[in-house]
């Protein structure tokens, strides 16, 4: 059995060339006008957040550097360091979630939450052992690198403030 395609009468008369390109142009203009207010896919860069991340990274490096020699960290030192770091990350996560509010994706907030998990994981490690100190520090370095890259690209994408 064969099927026959019946074209609607309206389609049989080919549209003249000029109106078609005019329609295309109208579509393009409509599309562009829909984008008149620039597209926004990433959150605004925030200098305070950037500085907070840098402070945490510095205090983390200082903590590890203190125990680079043979002296292992006391449990109280580790607990104090973790409590301070986790509090700082909570504050940063809140700020990031405000910056990424309303966007489809919130990758900075997501990474700060993962950074918190990294610090929580330190509780499972005996930081008196040099290999655990070395490897956990390397993991934290990579985690900070990821967040720094995000902040750099957010800064680069930041639209210039409109002229007064």
């Amino acid at each position, binding site marked *: 059995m064969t099927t026959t395609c019946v074209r609607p009468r309206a389609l049989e008369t080919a549209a003249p060339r000029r109106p078609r390109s005019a329609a295309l142009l109208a579509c393009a*203009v409509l599309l562009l006008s829909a984008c008149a207010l620039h597209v926004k896919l990433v959150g605004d860069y925030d200098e305070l957040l950037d500085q907070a991340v840098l402070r945490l990274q510095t205090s983390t490096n200082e903590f590890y550097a203190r125990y680079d020699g043979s002296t292992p960290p006391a449990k109280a030192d580790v607990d104090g360091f973790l409590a301070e770091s986790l509090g700082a990350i909570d504050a940063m996560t809140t700020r990031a979630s405000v910056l990424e509010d309303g966007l489809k994706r919130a990758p900075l907030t997501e990474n700060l939450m993962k950074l918190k998990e990294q610090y929580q994981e330190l509780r499972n490690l005996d930081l008196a052992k040099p290999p655990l100190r070395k*490897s956990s520090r390397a993991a934290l370095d990579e985690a900070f690198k990821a967040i720094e890259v995000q902040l750099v690209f957010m800064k680069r994408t930041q639209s210039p403030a409109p002229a007064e």
Partner: protein
Amino acid sequence: MPKLDAKDLFNTMLAAVRTSIGQDVPAARKFIESSARSLAANTKEVADWLAKGEVTVDEAQALMRMHERSAKMALTAAETIGLAMAERAINAAIDAVAGAVNKALGVALL
């Protein structure tokens, strides 16, 4: 009133997109390659310590969870790079034709 040509608009926008993306791609690639290299090196180190008995299985697993999480963070950062690239490329495309469109229409549409 000057005419607007859809093909010209498209070509101008495409050129702007290419210029915008061209600046970011090498940086993104370098970052992702560096993260992959670090993950490989850290995994090998943990495996060696475990083989020599310098760390316990639980400790090795905790370390690997940390390295895995850092690798996931690198992927999330790569996603940010992609989003930032897309945002800048789309906005560059709009900016590239804004002058011509506004002039042709006689109103500040873009």
